[in-house]
């Protein structure tokens, strides 16, 4: 089990770009070891200069956004590589929720499996939320309420977001996907036995007797 997640209250930062790819979220330099400091590597190519120092103009290097818990981005966020380190980097930095008009498929799946809320908003809400962050630049505190499916700005304006109901419930409970699937272990083995009987050729040549224990 993971801890359940019902919402987050905190600073919202804006990445006002479409098609932010996972190479940008976590550059390949951070993928060379099993346990890198992914939070430090988040948006590494934009966050640091060639000398390794922070670029002060990058949003996550500025107060109050260096403590952001919510990220607002434009459409097709997380496109490109399947690297789950993109999600780990956001989570380890402290981001608990990404709001965007759309997400790339693999990133979207990876996020749910790490308790990172990825919520879809419409284009008008995207613009309104970005404007609200601008207006409240010193104190851009937003409230994400997962059961209600809303995000509320500092001035009380409330915007709906979309998360499939069953996925939201699983996040709130903190379901472990593998545990959930293993409840169906009987069905899985029945499927496999039936497939092996009707399609023996599919599994011919795959036995591992030749591999030394």
């Amino acid at each position, binding site marked *: 089990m993971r801890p359940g997640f019902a919402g987050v209250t905190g600073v919202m930062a804006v990445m006002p770009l479409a098609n932010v790819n996972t190479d940008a979220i976590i550059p390949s330099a951070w993928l060379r070891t099993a346990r890198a400091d992914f939070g430090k590597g988040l948006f590494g190519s934009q966050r640091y200069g060639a000398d390794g120092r922070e670029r002060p103009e990058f949003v996550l290097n500025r107060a109050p956004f260096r403590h952001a818990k919510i990220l607002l981005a434009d459409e*097709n966020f997380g496109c490109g590589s399947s690297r789950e380190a993109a999600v780990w980097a956001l989570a380890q930095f402290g981001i608990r929720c990404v709001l965007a008009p759309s997400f790339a498929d693999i990133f979207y799946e990876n996020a749910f499996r790490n308790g990172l809320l990825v919520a879809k908003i419409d284009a008008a809400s995207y613009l309104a939320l970005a404007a609200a962050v601008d207006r409240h630049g010193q104190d851009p505190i937003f409230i994400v309420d997962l059961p209600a499916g809303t995000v509320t700005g500092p001035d009380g304006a409330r915007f709906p977001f979309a998360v499939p109901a069953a996925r939201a419930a699983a996040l709130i409970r903190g379901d472990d996907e593998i545990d959930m699937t293993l409840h169906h272990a009987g069905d899985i083995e029945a499927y496999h036995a039936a497939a092996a009987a009707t399609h023996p050729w599919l599994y011919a040549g795959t036995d591992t007797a030749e591999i030394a224990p």
Partner: protein
Amino acid sequence: MPGDRLSAAAEPTTAFDKIWNAHLVKTLDDGRDLVFVDRHILQETTSAPAFDGLERSRRRVRHPELTVATQDHIVSTEPGRDERSNPVGRELLDLMRSNSDAHRIRIFGVDDPRQGIVHVIGPELGLALPGCLLACGDSHTSTVGGLGALGIGVGTSEVEHVLATQTLALTRPRNMRVRFEGTVGPGVTAKDLILRAIGQLGIAAGQGCAVEYAGDAIRALPVEARLTLCNMSIELGARLGLVAPDETTIEYVRGREFAPAGRDFEQAAAEWRSLTSDAAARFERDFVVDCAAISPQVTWGTSPQDVAGVDECVPDPAGFGDAKRRDLAAAAIRYMGLEPGMKIEGIPIDVAFIGSCTNSRLADLEAAATIVRGRRVAGHVRALVVPGSTSVRHAAEALGLDRIFRDAGFEWRDAGCSMCVSVNEDVVPSGARCIATTNRNFENRQGPGSRTHLASPAMVAAAAIAGRITDLRKGSGT
């Protein structure tokens, strides 16, 4: 309900739905489908935490016999390399080996003649078969769609999920089709077809979809070219892509190491022949690409959709109607060090890279060698060929292709992902411009500050010789 199932079977069905339905264990309460994974291929950069997770939760690998591991991403490609050659990669390479050994998973490591890029060895060894469902912790798993398989790229949590359950819980992808109509011109390859489709439809066109590539132009492609086409389905935003199997596919699979043999093979082939879309099958999204309008493609920006014919110009961002696209294009052109309106042909290059899961198979190397034979790489250019697998390297060497490349001044390296993902030592220097047969031209993709132009193997070879991007149809490279 059986009645429903029968009437559903009588409905016109797409090739994708036929294969998906055959893998359906059950539909879950949340509406997602639990599908059985016939083959699971592991690579070293996305699997170590999955094994940690298994051990923490005291789970076992459910079907080690359906699981295969290789080492491709972080391996050195230095000729004569071994597992120790790239010190930075040792930890992940060691973990891939020790985890495979501990769980009795077959591993094709750097010392094995069957080693290579996951998406190259899957089809090559007959691990990927028509109509099978294959998962791998890598987005380009869609490559195996070239055989009519469902290749599903996943993250590390789902790698662990497959290890523990041999299934994936997924939202059923929607059906999309891209039909390539008309005659393909000279010098135009599968790489150009898919780049053009991405340019025309955009990098999010396939979101949530399984894309079937159809049309006479696709039927005429050999399997290796179909693998290239399906490889870049992810750059179209799709969950996966496929070409329905036909006789070309069946002949490709026959005799491969892990493919069924003898009577098994004939039984399998009969079934594979049925995995085509019914004539009246419905596609939620259906597009046509006009092949006659396609010239060899080259990207000019930092997204695969930033692409044009080699005979065209870098666009003026002002010409994009959409404001977002305008801003992205302007930023991309700046990053690439280009100017709006300049001709793509003639852009000088510093590095030429032939390799990656997109274009590193024997036919790709042969196409490049045809251009290179008897010529020299331009003096200022670093040119590399990295075969997609050790067996591709051996086959190419048996044909003498290594000599052709070496004599021309190319480096002839050992198999791996190399300069496509740049997690090993193969990196494009900051500010340098590389023309590459790879699949992603993102900022910093080939190394910090690197600039990437995507193109076909023959186009990359021609550019290496000329020292600048050149239209191979004009014979400047031949």
